[in-house]
C-alpha cells in the first residue's frame, strides 16, 4: 500500500488451506470411480436435460407430422402482369445489353450502350 504505482507490493493472495488437498482429491477420485449415470437416470436427475429432451421430442414429432402430410401444391408463378388488359411479354431471360439490339428500333438512342 505504500507504493502508489503498485498498491499490492509485498502482498500475495492467500493460499488454500493445506487440508483442502486431501479433501478435493478424495472427492475427485470418488467421482472418477463412480459410473456414469444412464440416460433415464440422468433425465430423472437433471431438469435442464429433461427440458432439452422434451423440446427435442416435440421437434421430432412436429417434423414427423409435417413429413407425413400431403405435399402442398406449388404456387404458380405469374408469368405476365395483366392489369388493364395489358399483356407485356414474359421474362425473356436476357440482360438489358442483350436486348438492346431488339429494342433499338423502338427506343432509338434513348438507351446508351455500355462499353463493357
Amino acid at each position, binding site marked *: *500500500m*505504500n507504493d*502508489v504505482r503498485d*498498491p*499490492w507490493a*509485498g*502482498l*500475495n*493472495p*492467500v*493460499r*488454500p*488451506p493445506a487440508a*483442502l*488437498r486431501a*479433501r*478435493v*482429491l478424495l*472427492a*475427485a*477420485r470418488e*467421482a*472418477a470411480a*463412480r459410473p*456414469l449415470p444412464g440416460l433415464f437416470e440422468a433425465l430423472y436427475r437433471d431438469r435442464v436435460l429433461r427440458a432439452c429432451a422434451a423440446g427435442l421430442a416435440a421437434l421430432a414429432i412436429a417434423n414427423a407430422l409435417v413429413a407425413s402430410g400431403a405435399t402442398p401444391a406449388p404456387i404458380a408463378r405469374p408469368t405476365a402482369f395483366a392489369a388493364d388488359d395489358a399483356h407485356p411479354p414474359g421474362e425473356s431471360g436476357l440482360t438489358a445489353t442483350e436486348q438492346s439490339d431488339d429494342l433499338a428500333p423502338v427506343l432509338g438512342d434513348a438507351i446508351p450502350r455500355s462499353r463493357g
Partner: protein
Amino acid sequence: MASIGVLDMRVLALGERVERDLREAELTALLDRLAGGDPDALGPIYDACASEIYAIAHWRTSSASDAADCVQDVFVKLASSPALAGGIRHARRYLLTMAHRAAVDRARTRRPGISLDDVPFLAAPSLDPDRVLDASRATEILHELPEAQREAIYLHHFAELTFRDLARVTGVPTFTAASRYRLGMARLRKRLGQKR
C-alpha cells in the same frame, strides 16, 4: 548503465515468459494424462493450479469456504469427465474459466443473508506488522468493490492474464474486462486517498 538495466529487465521478462510457457506445457501434459485415463494426474494438477483456482473463487465469492467448495467442484468435474480435458490448447485458461464458472454458480445459489467469513484476500509473506496491517486494510477495501471488478484485479494483476485472456475467462468483451480492472483500481486508489 541504463542500457544494461533495460537489457536485464528484458532478459528477466524473457525468462518469466519461458517459465510460464513451460508451466503451461506441463499442465497440458497433465490434463492429457488425465484424459488418457490416469487419475493419478489429479494430484500434480492440484499442485500446479489449485492456488489460482482457490484465489479466483475467493475473490469472486468473498468466502473462503465457498472457494474451497469451488476447487472441489472443478476437480470433481475434471475427474468425472476426463475426456473433456484432452487436447486443450490453453490449459491454465481452461481451468481458470472452470473456476470462474464454479464461483459464479456458487455465488448465485448462495442464500442471501448468510454472513461471509473474514478470511483476508491477501497475505503478507513477511511478519512486518505494517505489511500485515496493509493486508487487512487491502482486504477491507477489496470487500467494498463489486465482485466482477475484484475478480478482474486478481486475474490481471496476480494471475498475470492479459486483458484478452481475462475477457475469455470471464466471458465478456475485452473492453469490458479492461474497464472492470481500471474501474476497480480507480476506486481502490480513491479509497486510499491517492491521486493517479
